[in-house]
């Protein structure tokens, strides 16, 4: 009777993990079955593979290379607004891609703010379409992510080490050599690999900022094989390539992963003595200011452009908003039902079950799963009639790896700290869940739910494959408005989408925090 870690059996979690694996592997099997070697890979397909890898390498390298000095600046400088800026660094993660692209176009486009400013001094306008636009957008999303992860690394250097460094008279260079470089050497490869994996399967960015066959990712090529050629065999072949690419990237990320950071307390600072002279302070200040501008300008553009359009939104936008909110809520509910038991199972020592299913979600891209579902559904039922359920389901699969990363440490703490007590008190599974697990994991559950809701709200991926002309979600509707030159309505939709995504995140996160205690 021994061997249980807490008063709830891991069976539910194992079942959830098996379900997730089936929902991912089923479509993958369909893709394998349907893929046609046929014409083989043409030059455009090789170009797509090359472009996917090139842009992902560039995006990851730039994001991480820029994140290191920014994180270092944030780690050793205290200033008013620091906590706000660190919070802001988390925002791009839940920012809908299409909204960010809209903001980036307004700032970095050929007729955007920067080009306008450049023309005043006689400089040529910027070109945002193509490789540099795709990389710019990916850096916009991943520089903050990388900065936060690296900042975590700085925070995890014990304060005592900096005290000892001060005692030994370390300057900034000595700290770099003895404290920071070893930390970076441990962290950076894993962070690079995570960003690489995220960028590799980029869809919405390439869809909006790509520039024709030269700037097409494999994910986008799948979409084109579908909607331009209606060539399922070809879409499946491309999906197969994508599985190989994304699978290798996920394996690489996992292999290089530095493990779980503590995740909290980034807004607090370690007292530092090795902050150098005024020149270094100026440098750090400039870096922090530029990063803040880089993040804030596109957001400001979305708000500035969107306010006017908000009052003139066509009715389809409101319908699409309602659809998107429902999809987001369904995704969130399903995520909780799956991720919580999986996290509890992992906490009970069934590591592979939870982690494995979560990693599958990272390795399989949305359009691969979408293609697979399409192949499975098409003979029986109109895939378009299941567009929203499939979208909600795929969003859950995509959010699951992140949700598990958030939930597992808390589940583990609960099981390790109180599992034996619960067992010795003979708590029933229901009491254990209601009295201990939910109250103790409440903050993390709220955060994970908020993240899932926001990601699902903003997702523009599989819906683009499945939706017929009438059942669009808000991101798709906004994309269509952008495509049909209804710029003002698109701007309004962008602001609405931004507000709804952040709003959903905030509501779930706040519910999680409310009444939460030690």
């Amino acid at each position, binding site marked *: *009777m*021994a*061997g*249980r870690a807490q*008063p709830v059996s891991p069976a539910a979690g194992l079942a959830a993990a098996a379900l997730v694996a089936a929902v991912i592997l089923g479509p993958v099997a369909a893709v394998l079955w349907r893929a046609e070697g046929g014409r083989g890979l043409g030059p455009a397909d090789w170009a797509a593979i090359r472009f996917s890898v090139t842009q992902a390498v560039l995006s990851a390298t730039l994001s991480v290379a820029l994140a290191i000095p920014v994180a270092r600046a944030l780690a050793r400088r205290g200033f008013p607004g620091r906590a706000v800026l660190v919070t802001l660094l988390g925002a791009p993660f839940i920012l809908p891609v299409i909204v960010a692209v809209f903001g980036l176009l307004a700032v970095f486009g050929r007729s955007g703010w920067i080009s306008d400013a450049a023309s005043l001094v006689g400089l040529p306008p910027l070109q945002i379409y193509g490789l540099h636009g795709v990389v710019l957008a990916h850096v916009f999303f991943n520089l903050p992510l990388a900065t936060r992860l690296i900042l975590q690394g700085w925070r995890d250097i014990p304060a005592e080490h900096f005290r000892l460094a001060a005692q030994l008279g370390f300057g900034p260079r000595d700290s770099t050599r003895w404290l920071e470089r070893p930390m970076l050497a441990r962290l950076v490869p894993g962070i690079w690999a995570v960003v690489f994996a995220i960028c590799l399967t980029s869809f919405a960015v390439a869809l909006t900022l790509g520039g024709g066959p030269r700037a097409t990712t494999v994910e986008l090529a799948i979409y084109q094989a579908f909607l331009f050629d209606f060539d399922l065999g070809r879409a499946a072949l491309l999906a197969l390539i994508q599985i190989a690419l994304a699978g290798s990237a996920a394996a690489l990320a996992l292999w290089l992963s530095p493990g779980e950071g503590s995740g909290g307390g980034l807004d607090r600072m370690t007292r530092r003595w090795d902050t150098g002279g005024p020149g270094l302070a100026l440098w750090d200040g400039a870096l922090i200011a530029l990063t803040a501008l880089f993040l804030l300008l596109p957001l400001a553009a979305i708000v500035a452009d969107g306010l006017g359009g908000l009052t003139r939104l066509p009715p389809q936008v409101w319908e699409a908003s309602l659809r998107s909110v429902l999809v987001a809520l369904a995704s969130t509910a399903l995520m909780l039902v799956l991720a919580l038991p999986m996290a509890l199972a992992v906490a009970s020592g069934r590591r592979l079950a939870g982690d494995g299913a979560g990693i599958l979600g990272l390795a399989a891209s949305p359009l691969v799963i979408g293609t697979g579902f399409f192949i499975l559904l098409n003979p029986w039922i109109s895939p378009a009639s299941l567009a929203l359920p499939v979208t909600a389901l795929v969003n859950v699969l995509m959010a699951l790896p992140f949700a598990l990363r958030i939930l597992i440490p808390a589940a583990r703490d609960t099981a390790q*700290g*109180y599992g*034996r*007590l*619960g*067992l*010795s*008190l*003979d*708590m*029933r599974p*229901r*009491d254990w869940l209601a*009295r*201990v697990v939910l*109250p*103790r994991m409440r903050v993390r559950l709220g955060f994970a739910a908020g993240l899932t809701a926001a990601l699902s709200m903003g997702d523009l991926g599989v819906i683009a494959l499945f939706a017929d002309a009438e059942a669009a979600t808000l991101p798709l509707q906004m994309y269509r408005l952008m495509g049909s030159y209804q710029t003002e309505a698109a701007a309004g939709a962008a602001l609405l989408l931004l507000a709804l995504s952040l709003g959903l995140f905030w509501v779930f996160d706040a519910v999680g925090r409310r009444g939460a*205690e*030690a």
Partner: protein
Amino acid sequence: MRWGGAVLRLEDLIIDNGGFRVAATLQVPKGARVAVMGPSGAGKSTLLGAVAGFHDTPRGRILWDGGDITALPPGKRPCAILFQDGNLFPHLSIAQNVGLGIDPGLRLNADQRARVTRALARVGLGGLDDRKPAQLSGGQQSRAALARVLVQDKPLLLLDEPFAALGPALKADMLELVAELAAETGATLMMVTHDPADARRIADQVIVVEDGVAHPPTATAALLDHPPEGLRAYLGRD
């Protein structure tokens, strides 16, 4: 009464704690107060954990009052256990924490709530029902955990060094309280300790655990006055 027949019997028992094994063949008389002593890592906690039901026992049996409890889950065993930490849920009030000892679903009737209040008063925490553990001192937290043990009303009490973090005086107070409670309820007591003084003060018998073997209990005074070689090295005396 205290020297009645054996109530806990470990028959030819092998305990497996994640690959670490402890063998035990011994019995504990009803109402006895037994200290479990031995070098660090010898398996003292593993022995208590096995009795409480947290470890696999690939061989042998655990009998309580003649009944086989080897296969029972922890909550169905006749024992209450206090760990080194994690004895209270920090998000629940003291009264709720104690109430869990009566009904793990916390559906308490008026009588049961009164029992909680009485138990808290008995350990000197009267009026602190609604406090959260973090609002109490370390000693008070230990008292709250003892109040729960009191309402759990189990015939066997296992202490896995729950007072290790307290200062010497406070620890002595708590052991005093434990002894009183055990005497009041007639419970059998098994406690892990490193301190011979604690053993002398509370325990009438000692189980020595060393090299993966838990030896049958022997009288405290006799053992500590003439410790065998292994225990002597551990106690640091000739």
